[in-house]
């Protein structure tokens, strides 16, 4: 009989909660998923071919923001230093030049974000972008607008101005417009409104971001989770934080992949949806965290994962509710 106290590194509840919340908030680590790989490939080719912007849209909770962060983090390995600025767009009833540029400067952690006139702020931002673009091998700087569907015509005009100013200095502004599916609608609306210059500049390239939609993708994704160390410096595998004994004996998340996929598929069919199932990253991560947390008490060298545990975890992740909302939107 084993004595529980002798198990090394058994994580306490608090530790586990910390890890779980961090992972869910996207602050722990970024996972390479198959859609991410496509995204990175596209992004590289866009930057290499001299595009000035791209639209990335998709349904909620797919992991667009995290994927973009991952792509921007990986770009230096492909192209060398590509400076970027992440701007979570604020919805404004009336677009204000001053507020917009001040917000961008604050996102850039600029020291003098608050002082001066709107023109000063604009110049400050341009100089900030130029000084960074000049040091990049592709002579470009990427601004990543999160929730870009909130940008209005005025905002686009200002971005156009900045882009032109950078052009005059021999640099390029790349606007990565990431947002909900309605972003595709914004493009048509701009074309209808005769704002072709904006579409031509920033929206020629587009990509619909999708979730995990095959068992193979899911297996790849689980493989990434299995190979991740967390915390990074501790050299402990991510799942080892929850089920150390089982991991030592060769337990991997990949082993439960068919069970998880089948269960997600069931939920999809149950919701009355057609085609292949799509799993947004948010729910997938929540499910994995749920499964691992439930397994803590069952940790053993020959760990077996019951199917109902998977089922419960998926239900707890909120996937079913999201499917209902999807169904409603399709109608």
């Amino acid at each position, binding site marked *: 009989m084993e004595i529980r106290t002798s198990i090394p590194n058994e994580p306490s509840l608090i530790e586990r909660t910390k890890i779980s919340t961090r992972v869910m908030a996207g602050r722990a680590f970024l996972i390479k998923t198959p859609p991410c790989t496509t995204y990175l490939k596209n992004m590289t080719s866009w930057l290499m071919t001299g595009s000035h912007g791209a639209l990335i849209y998709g349904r909620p909770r797919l992991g667009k923001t995290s994927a973009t962060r991952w792509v921007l983090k990986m770009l230096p390995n492909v192209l060398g230093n590509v400076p970027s600025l992440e701007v979570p767009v604020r919805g404004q009833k009336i677009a204000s030049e001053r507020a917009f540029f001040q917000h961008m400067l604050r996102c850039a952690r*600029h*020291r*003098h974000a608050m*002082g*001066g006139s709107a023109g000063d*702020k604009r110049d400050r931002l341009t*100089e900030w972008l130029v*000084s960074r673009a000049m040091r990049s091998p592709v002579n470009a700087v990427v601004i990543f607008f999160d929730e870009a569907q909130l940008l209005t015509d005025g905002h686009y005009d200002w971005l156009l101005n900045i882009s032109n100013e950078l052009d005059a200095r021999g640099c390029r502004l790349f606007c990565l417009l990431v947002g909900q599916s309605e972003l595709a609608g914004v493009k048509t609306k701009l074309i209808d409104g005769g704002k072709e210059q904006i579409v031509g500049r920033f929206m020629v390239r587009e990509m619909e971001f999708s979730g995990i939609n095959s068992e193979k993708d899911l297996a790849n994704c689980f493989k990434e989770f299995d190979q991740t160390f967390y915390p990074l410096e501790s050299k402990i595998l991510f799942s080892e934080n929850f089920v150390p004994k089982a991991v030592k004996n060769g337990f991997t998340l990949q082993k439960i992949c068919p069970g998880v996929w089948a269960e997600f598929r069931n939920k999809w069919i149950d919701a009355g949806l057609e085609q292949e199932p799509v799993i947004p990253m948010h729910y997938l991560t929540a499910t994995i965290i749920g499964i691992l947390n439930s397994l803590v008490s069952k940790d053993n060298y020959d760990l077996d994962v019951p199917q109902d545990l998977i089922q419960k975890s998926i239900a707890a992740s909120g996937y079913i509710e999201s499917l209902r909302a999807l169904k409603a939107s399709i109608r």
Partner: protein
Amino acid sequence: MASLGAKYCHLNRVSIKVFGEVLAEFLPPDVSTPESTCTVDTVGFNISGFSKMLDEPLALIRSQSARQISLGATFQEVCLVGNVSFNELRSCPECLADGYHSTLHQLSWLKKCFLHSLPLVEHRIRPKSIHRHLSGDTKLIGALYQSWFGTERVWHEAYSSTWTVSNNTSIYQSAKNLVKQISATESALIEIQRHHDQLPRVIGNSASARVMMTMKSVNTPNKKVIELLMPVNCSIKRTHYFQCTTEQANTILQLDKYYLSVLMHARQLMCNSLQLTPLWKQTLKGLEKKLINGHEKCLRHFQKLHLVGMLIRVPGAPYDLRAPFDLSLFSKVPCKRLATIRCLEEMIDIEQLNQASGLSLSDISFRQNTWDQAEFSDLISQYSGFISRNENRIIHMHSENNEVEPVLQGQPDPDRRLVNIYVPSGPLAQIIDEMLLSYIWSWTWALFSVEMQSNLLVDSGADPKKFLAKELEKLSPIFAIQKNSTGLMLRIGSLVPYRHPSWKAGSKMDSTHILEVEHKTKMMGAFFQARLAKVKEEYERYLPRLPWIDQRPSK
């Protein structure tokens, strides 16, 4: 830091004051910095924080330090030059157009840019202190900001893609070369101090020439650095050795520029009085001869004119009529050479303001009690004798009809004057002789330069006397006095060669010159005669009403 600050203010659209506040955040709270230090060198400056804030590499911020280029104490003591100074913005036009400015440009004795070899320009914009805690280098921010961004033109050029100083490696290499020279000179000087316990003393007008002399005398001259210091090359003459005791050597080394000049004057007086002819005096006589050569006829014509002019020198006559005896009037003498000779006459005047000391004979006689008798006992001695007062009147002496000038009022000046002064003796006299010789050569070339530029001076209306003074200062020699085992050694750095320039001889063959002079003399003579008649008339009319004039001039 100045360059960084100016660019920071421009790029971030903030005022210079704001930058000052930002900078102050990275300095310790109660810091007081000397004027000539750089912010980066301030003790406790958070350099890594500052580089993070600017998002610039740490090495770039480190390069703003002046620690490397600051001169050692020995260097400063010997050359009497200061360290980097931030009291005025000095810059190279090329560098400035490229948006570059270096702390190296602020070394006041450096004449040219270390990258482009262009003369450095001192700017009119006065640097202002922006924050009382900040170091001197921040004072330049405003001036740099003005010159870069005050006029859009310069900065637009800086934005262009073809920068000549964009190559950081070459800038770094050039700067390093200069810094290496400075530190090599400093360590060589320290070595000398250790072995001979006395540093050389360098005396001279221009700071850059003193630095060059120092570098040359400790054998660390670098062709490139010498070129940056001066437009003219300085040649070092044969080293002279003088035997004297250690005490004498110490006393001589303590003599400053003022006392040396007084001694030079005294030596001139004594040589005149005793009819001694040391080498410098022979050189002077040679110069006189060269100047007169071929211009005897001009002198004769001049003398005629002179006599007419003297007659107009009556009380109340307008000043412009005292020509052509004014030095400033190249245009009013029939022959240029006459003006040159007049200049020389004034320079070698031992009684009035002497070129060497800037003092008159009376001044020297009055001030002679400033000498400390005990200290100088065997280096100076008292001398009494008469000097001939016409020694320097070259034109007068060489005129064929050596007429006696009309005496206007009172008694004529006596030909001789009593002098009672202290004069150098022993090794000091020898040293003074050598110095005088090099000065005479520099005077020769300065005169030559003035005569060469005479047409330009007449056209521009510039004062030839001022021009001559500038030339004299520019060409004045530099001396390095140093102790050695047997006494003293003197190195003279001369900016002019020890030979006569090719004076354009008036020559008897050049008939056109003579004709021209004759013609001019006639014209001027007529002019003076007319004025003389007029002045006389007025004089006669008004004289009775002027009560303080009790004596009429003899006619």
